[in-house]
């Protein structure tokens, strides 16, 4: 049984349907990439998983339990943490306060583990979150998500607005996160980065999963290279 299993999911906003018959699985302790162009529905899919938007039909099971339609807070309790697009840190609070709020449900007040993962945060603990650099904010957002000790971490657009070097630095921590027991579902426009760090990948195109398989295989696939990586066929 997969950690997260989505079957024939249909979802959207109001009368506009975005996701069509999406099926996807994430195994425990793996990094899985969800890639696709702008507007393909990647963010919508993460929102449907974490309960931020309702699903119309289909099922989402987590550790064998149906979670489609459950309130956001209950889904957090079950062990899914969502690092939302744009990070959405609590801008007026300090880094430490942000991290502690991440451990709100689990009453986890131990920030040493996440500081070990991103040591730079250790020297920024008393700084107001909005004064961090973009990379530090993303680290803080991921660390905040990990504070609930989830089994699955959803990360939306990790690379958004960050320098390539910073992206590499953060992405390099993802395998550590998955090895320590938290599977990662990474949504990324930067397909090269996403397919390099993940083991499995799904390609979303206009709301439908069009390709899936081992990341290495997709990375070597000429059609993927042509469509997303700007490489000439041949």
């Amino acid at each position, binding site marked *: 049984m997969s950690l997260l299993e989505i079957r024939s999911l249909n979802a959207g906003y109001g009368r506009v349907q975005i996701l069509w018959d999406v099926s996807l699985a994430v195994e425990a302790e793996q990094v899985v990439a969800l890639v696709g162009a702008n507007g393909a529905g990647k963010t919508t899919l993460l929102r449907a998983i974490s309960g*931020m938007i309702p699903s119309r039909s289909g099922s989402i099971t987590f550790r064998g339990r149906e979670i489609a339609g459950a309130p956001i807070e209950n889904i957090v*309790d079950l062990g899914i943490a969502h690092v*939302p697009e744009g990070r*959405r840190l*609590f801008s007026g*609070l300090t880094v430490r306060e942000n991290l502690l709020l991440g451990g*709100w449900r689990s009453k986890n007040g131990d920030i040493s583990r996440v500081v070990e993962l991103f040591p730079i945060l250790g020297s920024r603990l008393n700084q107001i979150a909005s004064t961090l650099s973009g990379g530090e904010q993303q680290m803080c957002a991921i660390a905040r998500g990990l504070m*609930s000790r989830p089994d699955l971490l959803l990360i939306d657009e990790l690379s958004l607005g960050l320098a390539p070097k910073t992206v590499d630095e953060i992405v390099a921590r993802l395998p550590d996160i998955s090895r320590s027991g938290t599977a990662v579902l990474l949504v990324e426009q930067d397909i090269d980065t996403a397919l390099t760090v993940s083991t499995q990948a799904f390609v979303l195109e206009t709301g439908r999963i069009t390709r899936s398989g081992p990341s290495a295989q997709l990375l070597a696939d000429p059609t993927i290279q042509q469509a997303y990586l700007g490489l000439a066929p041949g």
Partner: protein
Amino acid sequence: MTQFAQAAAYGVVQGGLLALVAVGFSLVWGIMNVINLSHGAFAVTGAYVAWLLNQHFGLDPFLAIPIVAVAMFGFGYVIQRGLINLVVNAPIFLTLLLTFGLSLVILNILQLLFTADDRTIDTSYASQSFVIGTVNVPYGRLAAFFLAVIITFALAALMTRTRLGHAIGATGMDRGAARLMGIRARHIYAVTFGIAAALAGVAGTMIATVGSFNPTTTPGQLTLDAFVISVLGGLGNMYGALAGGLVLGIAESIGGLLLTGTWVNAIAMAVLIATLIIRPSGLIGKAQYGGRVEV
């Protein structure tokens, strides 16, 4: 000169009391973007609870405060959970309409139960006062002033130093992100509203002790004062409410000396307009709540 000093002293103690009315109003506005037009009605409801306890059990109003606070917290929690949460994300006009209607309902029930007569809680110390130089300070008002200051600082400490306070602040900044942390926004909103109602009830009790109250004119006046003070001080800022309360108390008191009684509201509004022109974010306002994000 004596008259002026006396008015200033009265303004300070009155301002502390007004700050206590306003601090909860400001909290609710800052965190939930709800302008609670029933805030004055809550204060008067609290005043009636203390008055009843005094009438039937002879309980001193200062000792009645914990009971009033707990009762009003429960009342506020239920009102938010069952009623205001339904429209909390709707345009602000809807919450204005709802809380205005709620105020009418509460005040008509109070009038039905207790008539529209002016009431006051009599205490042995209400008429006593001490003299500093030429200035006369009543004990009751001074105690109410210190209580208001202590409660304001306690609330500020709750907001900045405790887990619950951070969760309330976080929910105010970004409700969706707070929910992703597993913070139950509906519960947090209800707790916030309960705190505001409790503080309103305590303020009402103090008002009933140092002056008089009735269900027809008092609530509207208190809501208006709370509105002016919240904007004066900066939304959602506890110290701002205290500063705003003092400014308004002194301005009204000294203005009352120079002009006739009905001009007092005009003075309040003049102070408000002057502040908005000079410091649009309020006396101690921060831009923090400007960054509010809705899901």
